[in-house]
């Protein structure tokens, strides 16, 4: 080829690559056919991603190894070169002279002097050799040569997943593809009763013909013995325990579900580019396996969907994992990898942060409220950042104290970064020292002291927030300044606002909080967060405490003001959605939360809100999915998952709900109703008695009384008392009304029951599946009023479902 021709080819190659698809087609169409063919060939070659991408030494370094040390032959195999060396032995490339094929030959020196291990090895090797599956490296034979055992197996082209991971994380679509291969292989092994036990990236091979699994069943149960023994001796384990399931770490029996845990850990590592469980030492790593969760992954809806599959596989209890490799593969199959950007989307691990209440160095009635409300305000402004998930102040409050237990924080509150602080007032100055600490290790990442006049609380808060953001070394895109719309304009107003936040934490303080918000707003009527909180106060007071008639109107007005001042104020949207569900607009609530979640998908409270809103719309599956998403982001976020299960009449799952450790008490009303409906009235009564003792709010007492009458089959006595409490707005809640109607029908009082259910649907409770499937309504099936009611609910539910889909809910929640 002459160099002129070469230049032509090169120039066209670059022009074509830098053009858009349309331009490229036009460009190539203008070119003579021979040149075009050359360039098209080169463009196609350019897509061979792996070629030359890793440095020569990694490909060809083996050439430098001493060949003299190789054995010449083993049995009828001629050794050609060494491929690798691992804990179990050496792997050679060898040539089978009889069948004229090249194989991989693995030595098993550990077995040479152990008769029992040898027997077990043969037994397992026979089972393993019987598996013939495209995703499993085929075992050809076991060779015994001069007392040493060798396995001859398929020689694979490509690289191990471990090698691939050194070049960084995989895209979602690659991850899913490799995941399918691994799960298909596991399914074939499990079908033959073989548990892999040692699934890890070095055993997963990526070949041009797909994924191949190696070394199954051969590592044997001795692995766990090695682990327990060797860790204490040297702090090192032969092989890696990084992918071991908790039961393996504890030396308990393993089964197929232990392999699914490892598969989950591998999926996580592919997406995140870092191990699911890490630590400075093996002991720390094992500790993380037993007690911690890897961070939630974000980046695209598909990333979140794969992460949900990962999370189930990584459940600490085998019973909570998918039932089988096939079930897990089905879950993965539901992940929709949308074409375009999503296909190549890379995941980011969310940084999980908690801002603990500050420690007051010298008690001072004037400033003590800041111990809670300053960190709370910092947490709120941090929570807008894309790759952070900030734990709620309720979670933080559980760990108040001067020496927090970082291990417990990492394991129970599911965090890896903690902000701690101290407060000291001296004269009219306030001195705050804030520290950012890594959990559970305790490494101090930054320490920062600010001193400012008492009147300048916002600057204090803002300084600390910025400093924390800097030290978290978050991706650049996250470098967001707190919205100017949220900056208060009046120092005194801001102080009142922070004081109010402190009161608003308990039911008893809500009325005082409301008054303080009002005073704050008199001084600074343009401060949106105060309006939002005021709205919440009005709603909660009206719903549960005093039932003031126009509480909903006040609440809505305040929330509207907040959103007029700052349409992006997440807090206001969350509060507003709660109110909308109360006032018969669950579809609006749902759409509001979906829109917010589309903007910043890592706020667990938005999904917790969707659990509620979707249920009111009659979209139970979506409500369950929202619960999974909320808990993926924060294992401790309270959600109304239990009533959803009750409405689905999924009593088994309802009774099996284990509340996360940080959600205290909760009420068991839904469990009681579930037990009663499932015919377990005695257990329901016992649960009710416990509930009565635990509950303090008067409104719950009347509910408990009604539930008792229901269990005693006295429907006529239900819901008859006209008490002060009947004014409380919770009695107007569509869901409460529906349940009352449901229970009345269960007691046989169909007339009143139907009226209640009608009211519930009219007030925005579209419980179609429950209406259709509950035997309690069977007697009403031919009643024309009931049928009309079902049709109304059905139409409303359909509308909500369409709106859910149009708002991108399916992509967001994976269904």
């Amino acid at each position, binding site marked *: 080829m002459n160099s002129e021709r070469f230049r032509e080819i090169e120039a066209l190659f670059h022009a074509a690559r830098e053009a858009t698809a349309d331009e490229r087609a036009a460009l190539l169409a203008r070119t003579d056919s021979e040149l075009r063919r050359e360039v098209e060939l080169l463009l196609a070659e350019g897509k061979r991603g792996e070629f*030359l991408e890793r440095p020569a030494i990694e490909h060809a370094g083996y*050439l430098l190894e001493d060949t003299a040390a190789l054995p010449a032959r083993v049995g009828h195999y001629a050794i*050609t070169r060494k491929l690798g060396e691992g804990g179990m032995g050496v792997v050679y490339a060898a040539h089978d002279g009889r069948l004229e094929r*090249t194989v991989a030959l693995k030595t098993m020196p550990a077995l040479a002097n152990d008769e029992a291990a040898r027997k077990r090895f043969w037994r397992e090797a026979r089972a393993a050799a019987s598996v013939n599956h495209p995703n499993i490296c085929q075992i050809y034979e076991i060779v015994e040569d001069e007392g040493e055992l060798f396995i001859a197996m398929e020689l*694979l*082209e490509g690289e191990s997943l471990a090698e691939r991971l050194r070049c960084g994380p995989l895209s979602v679509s690659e991850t899913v593809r490799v995941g399918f291969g691994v799960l298909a292989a596991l399914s074939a092994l499990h079908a033959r009763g073989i548990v892999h036990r040692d699934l890890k990236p070095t055993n997963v091979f990526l070949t041009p013909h797909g994924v191949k699994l190696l070394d199954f069943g051969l590592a044997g149960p001795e692995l766990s013995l090695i682990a327990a023994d060797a860790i204490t001796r040297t702090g090192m384990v032969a092989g890696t325990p990084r992918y071991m399931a908790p039961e393996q770490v504890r030396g308990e029996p393993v089964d197929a579900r232990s392999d699914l845990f490892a598969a989950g850990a591998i999926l996580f590592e592919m997406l995140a580019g870092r191990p699911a469980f890490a630590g400075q030492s093996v002991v720390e790593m094992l500790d993380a396996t037993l007690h911690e969760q890897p961070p939630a992954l974000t980046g695209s809806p598909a990333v979140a969907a794969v992460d949900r599959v990962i999370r189930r596989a990584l459940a600490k209890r085998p019973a909570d994992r998918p039932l089988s490799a096939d079930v897990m593969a089905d879950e993965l199959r539901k992940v929709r990898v949308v074409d375009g950007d999503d296909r190549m989307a890379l995941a980011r691990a969310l940084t999980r942060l908690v801002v603990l209440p500050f420690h007051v160095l010298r008690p001072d009635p004037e400033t003590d409220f800041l111990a809670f409300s300053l960190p709370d305000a910092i947490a709120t402004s941090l929570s807008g950042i894309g790759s952070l998930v900030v734990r709620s102040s309720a979670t933080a409050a559980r760990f108040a104290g001067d020496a927090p237990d970082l291990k417990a924080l990492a394991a129970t509150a599911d965090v890896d970064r903690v902000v701690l602080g101290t407060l000291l007032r001296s004269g009219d100055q306030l001195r705050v020292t804030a520290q950012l600490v890594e959990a559970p290790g305790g490494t101090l990442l930054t320490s920062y002291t600010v001193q400012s006049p008492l009147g300048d609380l916002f600057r204090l808060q803002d300084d600390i927030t910025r400093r924390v953001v800097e030290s978290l070394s978050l991706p650049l895109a996250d470098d967001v300044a707190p919205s100017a719309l949220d900056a208060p304009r009046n120092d005194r107003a801001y102080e009142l606002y922070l004081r109010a936040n402190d009161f608003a934490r308990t039911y008893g303080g809500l009325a005082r909080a409301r008054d303080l918000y009002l005073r704050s707003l008199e001084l600074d009527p343009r401060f949106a967060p105060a309006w939002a909180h005021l709205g919440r106060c009005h709603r909660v007071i009206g719903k549960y405490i005093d039932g003031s008639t126009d509480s909903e109107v006040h609440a809505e007005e305040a929330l509207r003001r907040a959103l007029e001042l700052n349409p992006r104020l997440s807090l206001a949207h969350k509060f507003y959605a709660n109110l909308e569900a109360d006032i018969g607009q669950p579809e609006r609530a749902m759409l509001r939360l979906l829109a917010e979640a589309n903007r910043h998908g890592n706020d667990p409270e938005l999904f917790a809100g969707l659990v509620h809103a979707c249920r009111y719309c009659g979209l139970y599956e979506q409500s369950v999915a929202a619960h999974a998403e909320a808990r993926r982001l924060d294992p401790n976020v309270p959600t109304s998952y239990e009533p959803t299960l009750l409405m689905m009449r999924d009593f088994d799952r309802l009774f099996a709900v284990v509340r996360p450790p940080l959600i205290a008490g909760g009420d068991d009303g839904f469990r009681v109703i579930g037990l009663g409906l499932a015919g377990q009235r005695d257990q329901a009564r016992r649960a009710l008695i416990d509930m009565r003792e635990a509950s303090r709010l008067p409104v719950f007492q009347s509910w408990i009384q009604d539930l008792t009458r229901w269990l005693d089959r006295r429907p006529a006595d239900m819901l008859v008392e006209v008490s002060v409490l009947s004014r409380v707005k919770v009695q107007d809640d569509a869901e409460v009304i529906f349940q009352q109607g449901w229970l009345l029908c269960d007691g046989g009082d169909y007339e009143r029951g139907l009226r209640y259910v009608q009211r519930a649907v009219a007030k925005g409770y579209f419980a179609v599946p429950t209406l259709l499937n509950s035997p309690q309504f069977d007697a009403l099936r031919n009643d024309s009023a009931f049928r009309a009611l079902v049709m109304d609910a059905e139409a409303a539910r359909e509308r909500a479902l369409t709106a859910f889909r149009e708002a991108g809910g399916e992509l967001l929640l994976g269904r």
Partner: protein
Amino acid sequence: MPDRANGGTPEASGEITNLLRAWSSGEHAAFDRLAEQVYPELRRMARRYMKNERQANTLQSTALVHEVYLRLVDVHKVEWRERAQFYAMAAQMMRRVLVDAARARASKKRGGSAAKVNIDDTAVLSPAPDRSILALDEALTALSRLAPRQARVVELRYFGGLTEEEIVAALDISPRTVRRDWDFAKAWLSRELNR
């Protein structure tokens, strides 16, 4: 910092530094003498790297030329451009080290005990059997006749493990040119080897 005890003595380091500066300022004769010193050191370190590698030690392979540089050159006496040129030379040496090893193997096999090995391309664990490095070497030499700069970029990146920045400094071209040259040469070589 690497320990000098195992590597170049201060005198050797001084000599190499002088050679590097001489070559860098245009004395072509200095190149061969420089290469003489660098080649065995690079081979020694590459072997050590492979040994560590087998023990699953995650040494960065790209660090190899950097490490050789630190061991052989008095870093206080050279400028960044000279350093870049050293890396470029070391990349070329690395190519020779690997090609020589592949040739040695090939000849040994012809006469050795494990004769008649027919490497089946569809079933090879490593993507680069002995002969593929030789084929690549030939294709790269052929490419350098048509497009010397583009071939150099491949040599620096693939054999030397140099970063884009280092290639920019060594060849005195823009980052964009480095990327374009790499993309084109890679496609070209891939097609040559798969013909």
